[in-house]
């Protein structure tokens, strides 16, 4: 009964909901560009700032400086010490978060309309006038060191460290952005000030705002917020040389379940084959329970709780990556199934039905992401970072739908490379043929 209803339903429901988000590209009087979605239904605004460069801008020998600097932004500014700043922020019920990744410093704020000016003045103080006071520096340094100590015996952290070192070598991506115990211990206040000047600049900022604010209000606010930051930024790192020789590297560590990361070369977002690769990845190991990896490794064999693959599109490197975790005595089988599936989809391609199902999912799921001011602001700033145009939201589903069976299977043949698929395994795996080619 249900199945009959379903097939009828699918016929009438072929057109997914459209994402309708009215984004305006605005330029402030001071010359900053921002994407704005005005929505006055809830009296607050979500603001997202991304400064391209992030931890990869760490100066030579100063690994961890950007991370420590970002950790200090909310630890005292202008005439306020760390607690004074926190008290002022909490009294306004403003929410600020400061984060750093390989490619960006991310600042997110949610502020109430009733005290927006005061709240953003406070945010401005943290970005333009941080104190980097010696006592705060020492305190936050100890927090970072505590995290680094924990990471020394955490299987997933060990995996990231080994993977990044193997694949990216001397590139900034090849080491952990938190730095090492030695590098963090050696950082001085001057290093932190220098990292601030390198990482937070007007030239590299991307901005979005969503919620209860007008274009005019936003312009004034942004000029005030970012006006005091330096214009020019430090040079970005060069494209990474990827070392993906194929094979398996094992990092021995006493723990019951082995964790593994694997990768081969990826596909750039600007590549004409990007959407085909994106849909192909969805079928291979993206997201849901229906992917081939999930079906073969989890559903049929019960070898893992989760196995995934994804296209990692970093500013200076593109990888086709994945991860899995299996008990030490079963991880060899899991890896063998993953390699087989990688080869099978390359050799045999996908079916018309798989392609259609993937398109229906990807196009239907897209509009669901635009739920709420916070998520929309985050998507809008991410689009700018990726160099996507305003009409991407309207056209994106058409680009997914344009992928043909012929194209996707050609991309599978040309791009998937099971021999180069390189695994890093942390644990005590049994029966693994360890060898990096």
């Amino acid at each position, binding site marked *: 009964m249900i199945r009959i209803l379903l097939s009828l339903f699918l016929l009438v429901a072929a057109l997914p909901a459209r994402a309708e988000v009215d984004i305006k590209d605005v330029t402030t009087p001071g010359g900053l560009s921002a994407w704005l979605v005005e929505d006055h239904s809830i009296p607050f605004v979500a603001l997202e700032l991304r400064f391209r460069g992030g931890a990869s801008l760490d100066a030579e020998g100063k690994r961890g400086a950007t991370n420590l600097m970002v950790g200090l932004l909310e630890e005292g500014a202008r005439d306020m010490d760390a607690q004074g700043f926190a008290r002022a922020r909490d009294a306004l019920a403003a929410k600020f978060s400061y984060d750093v990744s390989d490619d960006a410093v991310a600042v997110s704020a949610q502020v109430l309309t009733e005290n927006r000016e005061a709240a953003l003045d406070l945010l401005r103080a943290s970005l333009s006038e941080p104190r980097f006071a010696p006592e705060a520096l020492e305190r936050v340094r100890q927090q970072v060191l505590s995290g680094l100590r924990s990471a020394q015996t955490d*299987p997933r952290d060990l995996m990231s460290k080994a993977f990044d070192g193997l694949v990216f070598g001397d590139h900034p991506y090849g080491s952990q952005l938190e730095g090492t115990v030695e590098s963090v211990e050696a950082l001085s206040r001057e290093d932190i000030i220098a990292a601030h000047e390198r990482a937070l600049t007007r030239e590299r900022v991307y901005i979005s705002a969503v919620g209860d604010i007008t274009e005019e209000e936003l312009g004034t606010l942004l000029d005030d917020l970012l006006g005091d930051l330096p214009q020019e930024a430090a040079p970005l790192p060069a494209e990474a040389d990827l070392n993906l020789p194929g094979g398996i590297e094992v990092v021995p560590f006493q723990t019951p379940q082995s964790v593994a990361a694997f990768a081969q070369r990826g596909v750039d977002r600007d590549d004409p084959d990007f959407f085909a690769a994106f849909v192909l990845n969805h079928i291979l190991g993206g997201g849901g329970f229906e992917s081939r990896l999930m079906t073969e490794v989890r559903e049929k064999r019960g070898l893992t709780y989760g196995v995934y693959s994804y296209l990692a599109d970093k500013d200076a490197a593109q990888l086709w990556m994945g991860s899995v975790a299996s008990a030490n005595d079963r991880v060899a089988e899991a890896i063998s199934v993953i390699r087989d599936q990688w080869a099978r989809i390359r050799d045999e391609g996908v079916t018309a039905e798989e392609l259609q199902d993937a398109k229906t999912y990807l196009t239907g799921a897209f509009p669901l992401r635009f739920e*709420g001011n916070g998520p929309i602001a985050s998507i809008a700033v991410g689009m700018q970072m990726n160099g996507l145009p305003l009409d991407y939201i309207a056209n994106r589903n058409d680009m997914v739908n344009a992928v043909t069976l012929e194209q996707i299977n050609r991309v599978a043949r040309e791009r998937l490379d099971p021999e180069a698929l390189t695994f890093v395994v942390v644990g005590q795996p049994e029966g693994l043929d360890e060898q990096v080619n």
Partner: protein
Amino acid sequence: MRNLTVWLFAALAAILPLSVMAETTEQVTSFTLDNGMQVVVIEDHRAPVVTHMVWYRAGSADERPGVSGVAHFLEHLLFKGTKTMEPGEFSSTVARNGGSDNAFTSYDYTAYFQRIAADRLDLVMGMEADRMVNLQLDESDIATERDVIIEERNQRVENSPGALFREQKGATQYLNHRYGVPIIGWRQEMEALDLEAALEFYEMYYAPNNAILVVAGDVTPEKVRGLAEKHYGVIPANPDLPERSRPQEPPQLAERRMTMRDARVSQPYVTRSYLAPERDSGAQQEAAALMLLAELLGGGQTSFLNERLQFDKQIAVQVGAWYSATSLDDTTFDLALVPAAGVSLQQAEDALDEALIAFLETGPDPDALERIKMQVRAEEIYDRDDAAGQARRYGRALTQGLTVKDVQAWPGILQDTTSEQIMQAARRVLDRSQSVTGWLMAPEVTQ
């Protein structure tokens, strides 16, 4: 995927967000179907999206002894097929309609949800109603999925000394209540879970009169009522649904301590938990006081413990306090402290106790309390941006003994709570004789 909601204590750094504290009163409609299924509708018409959730008043604490993990195991098995659906067809149908689906299990509830375009609500409701009563399982489903949950346990627990420590702490905290048994189950009992145990749990608890439907997003109450009557309304109530009463915790009279050593620990820490009352329907005052107490003690940079232990004495790298207010039975009030380099766990614990005594003498800083209340007020605004978050909050509350009215009264109760009430609650709960103190550390090095 198919998440297990790990209760509390998840990470030392994670301070319970204030959003847990506030509920909005607009947008929400509630009614009950003739068969006893309760329905809550949360309207948000900004995007053509809907979150559809079914919550069962049955979680791991409702399991019988010997089959720990069966509530969570059954949650996995609900994706395996029914009389009319193939295994995996549920999720693949949701995906083919551009939606995503998942489920989670906790001590007091099991919940299933889909996020999908609003015009597909009829479809997912039909499928969810189907698997409420028509589940069909065979032995091979059981065997593979049991391997999956054991790998899930490996991933979440066995590979993490912090998670193993939390398990031990739970077992130490609860002498008699099933909250002392992990949601995912003890490993040796998980390995023996069978079809019979899963079906027994299913037949006892999966029924409309033990379920709550929560729909949030671009829908109207009228629309939801029509669809709910069509899909869920036709399922008869289970007349044999047992009354929900679990073995309760006796008064704790003796302080308990535990020390766990694991070679994978490179940053030791100390935790303290106190048995504490939870929010009860019509009687949420003391829980509100404890919620504010947790914020005052450990809710951020300016909290009492942070000022004293992180800033003044530099004993701690991090210190936090949190209180799990929503729970069917006795809950806990928790503290954790990561000591600074060179500070022993004994020194850290002593400093923590000294600070608690000092707090009990001085009481809350009125300005700090005012700031927290301002954040509670603001949260009612921010929360309107997250209908799915509100859906989770109502679902949790209604499976844990509260009513819609209780949920809506909560922000006001928090707002009206006085310093005196907070101190009263603090004096009652922060009593070492009803506490568990835990040390997690690396093995001793022997020469």
